[in-house]
Each structure stands twice: as structure tokens, then as C-alpha cells.
């Protein structure tokens, strides 16, 4: 079974600074997808960024980018120019390519952006 590990339960960053959230995963599959979801205090889950394992280029969405290291099974999220609205829980998630494998989530990292 696939597992997703987020080793940082809580992090904080100053406004306008850069922060990196870590995620590692375990799988025997060769093709899969990785995701970062954001959950602000409103509780709504929002997709931040997605990476296909067969793509070597790291995904980027505005201030959010990932560092995908397939051999190391690592998938970190970098937030540049942090804003107060980035304060949220961040979940790393994995979806395998085989069958109907649903999304598996890590336990989350609580990020606080400080003014």
C-alpha cells in the first residue's frame, strides 16, 4: 500500500519570505500523480499543484512550485513571497496509476504566515 509522510507538523514563515514543505512517499508503481492540497481555516480543500511522475520538469503555479525527486520519492512544495492568505493546512497526496486507486493523503503540515 502507498504511504505519504509529511514530517513537519507545523511551520511558520515571515510574510514575503520563502518556505519549503516536505513530503515523501512510498510506492512500487512507476507511474503516478502527486498533489498538494491547501485547507485554510474555512475548511475548504483547494488543489494547489499537481505533478505527473512521468514528467521530469517540476510543476509550477505562480508562487507555488515543487521539487520532485522521483528516485528519492520526495515531493516538496516551495511557496515564494509568502502571503498572509497562505496560512493553512497543507496536505501532500498520492494517486497511483493502477486500477481505481483513490487519493492517499499525508497527515498535513500547518503553515502560519506571520506579518
Amino acid at each position: 500500500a502507498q504511504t505519504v509522510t509529511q514530517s513537519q507538523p507545523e511551520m511558520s514563515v515571515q510574510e514575503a519570505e520563502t518556505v519549503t514543505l516536505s513530503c515523501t512517499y512510498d510506492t512500487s508503481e512507476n507511474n503516478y500523480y502527486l498533489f498538494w492540497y491547501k485547507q485554510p481555516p474555512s475548511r475548504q480543500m483547494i488543489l494547489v499543484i499537481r505533478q505527473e511522475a512521468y514528467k521530469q520538469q517540476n510543476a509550477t503555479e505562480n508562487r507555488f512550485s515543487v521539487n520532485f525527486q522521483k528516485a528519492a520519492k520526495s515531493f516538496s512544495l516551495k511557496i515564494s513571497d509568502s502571503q498572509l492568505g497562505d496560512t493553512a493546512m497543507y496536505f501532500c497526496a498520492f494517486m497511483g496509476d493502477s486500477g481505481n486507486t483513490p487519493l492517499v493523503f499525508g497527515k498535513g503540515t500547518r503553515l502560519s504566515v506571520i506579518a
Partner: protein
Amino acid sequence: NAGVTQTPKFRVLKTGQSMTLLCAQDMNHEYMYWYRQDPGMGLRLIHYSVGEGTTAKGEVPDGYNVSRLKKQNFLLGLESAAPSQTSVYFCASSYEDRGRWIRAGELFFGEGSRLTVL
């Protein structure tokens, strides 16, 4: 657009009572999911469905039952509620076309339902 709607948003139950959470989506998605979220545990999959009339167990299915009689609805039932089922429940749906990898894996979530079992 309504997206994914969960009812009720809040509920308090006594141990042993039964209840049903309703999830409705208007995006014609094939896949639907029920997760529970507990502090420090992330989101854990309870049950899911890959189409009308189908259901499958997730990571923590015990004590729950589900039904997908209509494509747009996914019901989560608690037959005899226990305090361990106190949690926030999230329904989600997704469009899956793995042959074309269109929006693969993007889940659309409801706003969550907070259930307390006394």
C-alpha cells in the same frame, strides 16, 4: 455552480443512534469519496465509488456503510454511532479519464460535516 454539497453541516448524536450523511454533486463526476479528518491524522478514506451502483472500502470502513444509487449522490451511513466516529467528514468527487489523464486526481470537496457522538 453548487459543486459538491454535503448535508447536514453539523450534527450531534448519542451513542447508538443512526444517521445518514448526504453528498450531492452536479458535475456529472463518476468518482465519489467519503473521507474523515481527525486532528493529526490527515484525511483518511472511508469508502469510495467509481460509478453508479458501485462502492468500495477505503482505509477505515468499519462502522460505516455507503450507497450510490444515483450517479449524483453518495450516502454515508452510521448504523450505530460511537464516540470514535466523532470527526469532520468530507465528501469529494472527481472526473477520471485515465486514458487521457484529464484533470486526473483533482478532487472537488464539499465543505465538510462536523459530527459529534456523545
